[in-house]
């Protein structure tokens, strides 16, 4: 039977050099789709939840979805699934570009990497041939230079790699691919570094993935592409301004965290907005594999032309560090890509360090000539580089994230994180529902595991009152479940501004031969969300890990349009557990039985 799965994965043991070809378990694939869902299920079943994340017992799964590489819109995504060294829980970091589609074209659904190479190594995939090669010539290189050098050795390949940050095991290290795309979050780059794995190059002869029903997929794709083109966000706002267009929207609702969330309105925000970026440094748009949206930015930084910042780093280096120097933010973001650092957690950690410095806990003599002062352009650029290098003692500490930094100075409450991962750019005091997403995200502080900004601020699919709690728990569950399904299919979440569960079910069914209804697809997403939670429980997660920082529950917003507001997570969290069928943060026996997860 034809299907958009390849039905094949490679298990690569870096300790022994053994490479085994395994058949994809199609029963599991049907239950967990692929990508984030299937990767987590495999990791859970293989007992990885209890291992030391930076030991050779941890495993790295690079996994595509069944739609990756197909003609479906925005079908260029892959996931890195592993146990996070930052959170100690599940990590599933998603990235676009072309690398995932190339892996699929080469004939693989996933690569499972185990053990630890005795020397720095890279994996070269060339269609069905996989080999381990010495990476000693690339160690210490910036991500983009290593990308270029590896392309000289393997012409036409797509490169995934870590930069110096991953090599020195920064817990904020990202995995980069195709120069400026990143599986950015949860320290997945450190896991790669801990295995002495510098890069994975992929070359593929094929240029197509054959689906179960080509005619039906063509029809579903045509309908989806039309919706994406006609939708004001995916057909207009995102291509024109990129995600950075959110700067002014979120700021005007008074929910734009400023100076490490001490305030939530930034008067100079327009200087760092998508509108200003378009009028100043933008060179052109960039698109991932088969993406009709093309939200990526290509910008000028000095005499270089590089990938530009998303909304998150514009906020995190900008308002959150009290700074409106767009050129400095562009440069700092570029260094995140070059060193291979998470462009959310890195600037958020700098913001936390600035608060510690401002309040006298970090001393000027620790700063080696570059004070961590609010609004300092020099500080955001140079401290990003220092974190990437990981040599200066304070920078090494910062490279492990804001929680460990603030705990070191005796004030963990200044870390604006959940499960030790930094929260993104929306203040959950001014926007109540997103607080549930943050608190209950299985991978820690994160917005893209249930993007309630869509209904609460953008009015999609309908406008909710951002200040109220009513119904938000149910909305959160639906968004989390649908997102889990989209992530597992290998599609970009941004397509969901225009598409809904019936569209995704139609694409998946045409690709794989399943017969899911929209409702059943949401149940698959729910199963995925619950298997992630089971992984976290096995990893030692406690109910109190589903919490927001005290600043959000005890310090009302001090100024701006949302002045006086505070997170009501104490109201919404019990409601959320009820709609999930969870008790004390974990699924009940009945819920596990209903989802086919009972053991």
């Amino acid at each position, binding site marked *: 039977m034809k299907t958009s799965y390849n039905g094949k994965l490679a298990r690569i043991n870096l300790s022994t050099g053994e490479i085994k070809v395994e058949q994809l378990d199609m029963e599991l694939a049907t239950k967990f789709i692929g990508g984030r869902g299937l990767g987590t299920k495999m990791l859970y079943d293989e007992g990885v939840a209890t291992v030391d994340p930076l030991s050779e017992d941890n495993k790295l799964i690079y996994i595509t979805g069944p739609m990756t590489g197909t003609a479906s819109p925005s079908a260029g995504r892959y996931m890195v699934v592993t146990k996070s060294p930052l959170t100690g829980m599940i990590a599933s970091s998603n990235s676009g570009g072309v690398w995932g589609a190339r892996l699929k074209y080469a004939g693989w659904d996933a690569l499972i990497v185990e053990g630890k190479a005795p020397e720095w190594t890279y994996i070269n995939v060339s269609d069905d041939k996989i080999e381990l090669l010495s990476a000693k010539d690339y160690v210490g290189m910036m991500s983009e230079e290593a990308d270029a050098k590896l392309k000289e050795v393997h012409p036409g390949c797509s490169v995934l790699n870590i930069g110096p940050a991953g090599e020195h095991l920064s817990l904020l290290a990202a995995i980069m691919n195709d120069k400026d795309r990143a599986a950015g979050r949860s320290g997945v780059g450190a896991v790669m570094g801990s295995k002495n794995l510098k890069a994975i190059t992929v070359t593929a002869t094929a240029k197509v993935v054959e689906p179960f029903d080509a005619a039906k997929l063509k029809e579903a794709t045509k309908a989806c592409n039309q919706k994406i083109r006609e939708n004001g*966000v995916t057909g*207009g*706002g*995102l291509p024109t301004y990129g995600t950075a*267009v959110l700067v002014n*929207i979120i700021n005007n*609702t008074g929910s734009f965290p400023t100076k490490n969330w001490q305030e939530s309105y930034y008067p100079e925000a327009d200087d760092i907005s998508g509108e200003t970026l378009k009028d100043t440094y933008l060179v052109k748009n960039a698109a991932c594999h088969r993406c009709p949206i093309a939200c990526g930015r290509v910008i000028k930084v000095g005499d270089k032309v590089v990938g530009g910042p998303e909304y998150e780093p514009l906020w995190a280096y900008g308002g959150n560090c009290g700074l409106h120097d767009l050129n400095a933010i562009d440069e700092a973001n570029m260094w995140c890509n070059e060193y291979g650092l998470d462009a959310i957690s890195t600037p958020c950690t700098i913001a936390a360090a600035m608060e510690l410095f401002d309040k006298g806990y970090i001393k000027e003599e620790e700063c080696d000539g570059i004070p961590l002062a609010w609004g300092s352009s020099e500080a955001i650029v140079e401290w990003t580089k220092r974190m990437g290098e990981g040599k200066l003692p304070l920078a090494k500490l910062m490279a492990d994230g804001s929680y460990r930094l603030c705990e070191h100075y005796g004030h963990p409450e200044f870390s604006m994180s959940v499960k030790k991962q930094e929260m993104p750019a929306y203040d959950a005091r001014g926007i109540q529902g997103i607080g549930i997403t943050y608190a209950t995200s299985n991978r820690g502080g994160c*917005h893209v595991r249930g993007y309630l900004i869509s209904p609460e601020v953008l*009015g999609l699919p309908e406008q909710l009152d951002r200040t109220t709690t009513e119904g938000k728990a149910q909305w959160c569950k639906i968004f989390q479940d649908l997102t889990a399904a989209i992530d597992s299919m290998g599609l970009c979440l941004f397509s969901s501004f225009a598409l809904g569960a019936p569209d995704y079910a139609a694409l998946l069914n045409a690709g794989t031969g399943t017969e899911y209804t929209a409702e059943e697809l949401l149940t698959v997403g729910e199963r995925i969300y619950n298997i992630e939670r089971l992984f976290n429980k096995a990893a030692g997660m406690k109910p109190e890990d589903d919490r927001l920082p005290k600043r959000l529950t005890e310090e009302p917003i001090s100024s701006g349009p949302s002045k006086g507001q505070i997170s009501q997570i104490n109201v919404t969290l019990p409601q959320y557990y009820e709609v999930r069928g969870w008790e004390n943060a974990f699924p009940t026996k009945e819920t596990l039985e209903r989802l086919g997860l009972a053991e």
Partner: protein
Amino acid sequence: MIEVRLFATFREGRDKIVYLEPEQASCPADVLDHLKIPHEEVAICLINGFHSKLSDPVKDQDVLALFPPVGGG
């Protein structure tokens, strides 16, 4: 004065911020007519930071923020 902030494509051919006398506009719809912005092009209308309808009242000292369809993440 009513402060009207324009964003994204609404800035094309217009200033970023426009000030109107309260007599010139009693609701966002009046503001849009004054600025020659078709009502159906507005996706988000904030009055003092809160989502509002085009028929909601605006008064002196209010800040109106107008956006076409935009999004991100």
